[in-house]
């Protein structure tokens, strides 16, 4: 065992550095220092610092030193004043400090403490994107620009324009993204640069400037909007295909709730569940917009009480086609499977087509009024024929499946004169029938743990040699394979008289050999 190396002596503070310059700190060296030494070092440092004026901020371990210094002494008072507009003693919190650090126009905390924010407001507050790149959010009521001129659009950092935001730190926040910049760190860097440069000028009126939400937030909220709205956007027939394991009635009810909240009247042809069960979970203002045509209680008129809709399910369906109520309307068929089992497929498809293209029949309807037909279909009950027919009638087709307790919807959009597009979305339906998007199924834990034994290199401890020496490698490389037709071989064959004789076989037949050229196997005794 080698003797332990001698312990290093306590490092002298200024041994390695010339006097007057800031000594470098290394993390490891902080350990063996003791308090007394720190004090000794501190006074030495303070003496040194007063002399040098580097702009670079010193790292940790020196906060204690600066407490006695005036603010901004570490970077030169002039520069500091220009950036921060002066600030109090270096403290965290404190009302006076907050006010001093705040915007000069409002009393809010300056943005420079927080580099980025995330929008926490619901998406209904978003204004449609205008031509200017920033959208105002209600949490921010003061946006100030620092710069020589006020740019109509924020370019990607060129020019002296800069941005300083004041926002309420408690109540939600916003994320600023400059156009053309996606990388968050770049955004932060830009903001830092932007804050440093320039002077304070007056901001234009608030309505003109907008702050866009960050990419991630915008994507998330847009997804929520898109999921239900895009399912309803195309109009026509929306087909929900579910299975026994992944039921689709809750998604149907979520779509009905969305339509009802948009002000449409919803007619429901209910064949599979009773009216009370269907209306369960909806609150009263949605329930007032739902008209339930009951085909559940007595669809085939077995009880003969006369309560049923005359004509059976077909008449009920046709009655929906003939309604004269103006305005946008949503018709929900729960379920198409029941109708398909009781009506001939062709009749059903013709009626569905009439139903979903109703607005084109009526001449006075405005193009904004669409008829949405939502159909719930249990795909295991039908063969490929009826499924294919209904699928081709549908403008939007949602197939429900899932994995590991998480439901997913595979949506196929058939926009007119465009290629059909697919989208897969993981979601869950909340008890009040609003949709919540999920990222995906939780990752399954590995069934087998990673091998604890690290794989050994099999080429160690061999009884034979796998490696080549240099000479062997050269010999191997220079070897010509016997059947490879290289140029040397070609020369050798073409010029046989260069000393290499082709081989001959000399055969002397003896007495017992009976060579017959025509039958070489003549000597075999077969």
């Amino acid at each position, binding site marked *: 065992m080698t003797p332990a190396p001698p312990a290093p002596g306590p490092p002298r503070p200024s041994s390695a550095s010339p006097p007057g310059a800031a000594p470098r700190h290394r993390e490891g060296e902080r350990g063996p220092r003791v308090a007394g030494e720190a004090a000794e070092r501190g006074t030495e440092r303070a003496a040194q610092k007063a002399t040098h004026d580097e702009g670079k901020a010193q790292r940790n371990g020196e906060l204690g030193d600066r407490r006695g210094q005036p603010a901004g002494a570490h970077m030169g008072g002039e520069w500091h004043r220009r950036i921060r507009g002066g600030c109090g003693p270096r403290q965290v919190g404190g009302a006076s400090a907050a006010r001093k650090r705040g915007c000069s126009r409002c009393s809010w905390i300056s943005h420079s403490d927080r580099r980025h924010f995330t929008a926490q407001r619901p998406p209904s507050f978003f204004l449609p994107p205008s031509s200017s790149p920033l959208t105002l959010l209600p949490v921010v009521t003061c946006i100030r620009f620092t710069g020589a001129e006020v740019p109509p659009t924020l370019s990607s950092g060129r020019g002296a324009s800069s941005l300083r935001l004041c926002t309420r730190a408690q109540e939600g926040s916003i994320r600023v993204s400059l156009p053309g910049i996606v990388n968050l760190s770049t955004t932060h860097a830009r903001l830092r640069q932007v804050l440093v440069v320039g002077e304070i000028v007056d901001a234009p009126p608030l309505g003109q400037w907008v702050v866009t939400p960050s990419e991630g937030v915008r994507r998330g909220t847009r997804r929520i909007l898109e999921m239900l709205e895009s399912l309803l956007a195309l109009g026509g027939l929306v087909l929900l295909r579910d299975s*026994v*394991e992944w*039921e689709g009635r809750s998604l149907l009810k979520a779509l009905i709730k969305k339509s009802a909240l948009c002000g449409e009247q919803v007619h429901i042809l209910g064949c599979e569940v009773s009216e009370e069960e269907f209306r369960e979970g909806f609150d009263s203002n949605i329930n007032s917009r739902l008209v339930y045509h009951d085909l559940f209680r007595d669809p*085939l008129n*077995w009880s003969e009480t006369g309560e049923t809709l005359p004509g059976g399910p077909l008449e009920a369906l046709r009655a929906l086609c003939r309604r004269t109520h103006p305005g946008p309307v949503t018709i929900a068929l729960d379920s198409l*499977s029941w109708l398909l*089992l009781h009506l001939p497929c062709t009749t059903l498809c013709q009626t569905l087509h009439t139903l979903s293209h109703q607005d084109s029949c009526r001449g006075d309807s405005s193009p904004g009024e669409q008829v949405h037909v939502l159909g719930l279909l*249990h795909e295991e009950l039908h063969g490929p024929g009826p499924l294919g027919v209904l699928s081709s009638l549908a403008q939007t087709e949602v197939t429900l499946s899932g994995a590991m*307790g998480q439901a997913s919807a595979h949506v196929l959009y058939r926009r007119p004169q465009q290629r059909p597009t697919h989208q897969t979305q993981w979601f869950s339906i909340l008890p009040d029938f609003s949709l919540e998007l999920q990222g995906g199924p939780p990752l399954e834990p590995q069934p087998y743990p990673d091998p604890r034994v690290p794989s050994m290199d099999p080429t160690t401890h061999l009884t034979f040699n796998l490696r080549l020496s240099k000479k062997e490698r050269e010999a191997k490389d220079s070897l010509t394979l016997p059947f490879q037709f290289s140029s040397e071989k070609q020369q050798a064959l073409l010029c046989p008289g260069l000393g290499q004789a082709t081989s001959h076989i000399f055969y002397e037949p003896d007495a017992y050999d009976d060579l017959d050229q025509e039958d070489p196997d003549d000597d075999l005794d077969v």
Partner: protein
Amino acid sequence: MFPELNNLLNTTPDQTEQGKLTLLCDAKTDGSFLVHHFLSFYLKANCKVCFVALIQSFSHYNIVGQKLGVSLTTARECGQLVFLEGLKSAVDVFFRPQEEPHPLQFLREANSGNLQPLYEFVQEALKPMDSGEAAWRCPVLLVDDLSVLLSLGVGAVAVLDFIHYCRATVCREWKGNVVALVHDSGDAEDEENDILLNGLGHQSHLILRAEGLATGFCKDVHGQLRILWRRPSEPTAQRDRSLTYQYKIQDKNVSFFAKGMSPAVL
């Protein structure tokens, strides 16, 4: 009634859920032990039971019921149990004058009719009495089993309609329960049976599926039971939607255990 199955389903005879359709299906094995369980369970829970038994005779169910602690004879005598013995009464269809409707009237019809007479029989049997006092807790319809109706010539849509009407009347109107057994044909492609099974699956609240083991027969483990809750009663309850257990049928009991945890193996 098997106490272990009650634990798995989280029910006791004292507090049964009402207004539910339970679908029992079996594939590659015999799921009739589930029928015996539910029969004795609802009799012990003091419910009025209408049992449409198309497969076995009354004495068969009686013998098994006695092992599980209920007496079908007493229940039938005091009016708690209305028993339609399909095997015996099927013959009566042909020897009865045609004007009187019979629950199994469809046997007489040439083309596949509907099951309206059967529905009317059930309606008559489970109708709440007008006496005012609730003698029994809730009406229960038990059918063993529906696949044999397909074999007898009834269409799958007709059977689905029958269950639809039973659900509308028994479950929704009278807040009772319906339990039905359907055999799963498995590999043998029976389209009508698949339509019936899947259609009922979409309508039901609870699906109990008894399957044979994938690896074949075994002395100690008789099969596997999959429990699927489709429509939870409380929307906020986030309970397990699907559970799988293996079971072994003993003389008077069925023991359930988690997959691979059979006492014979451990």
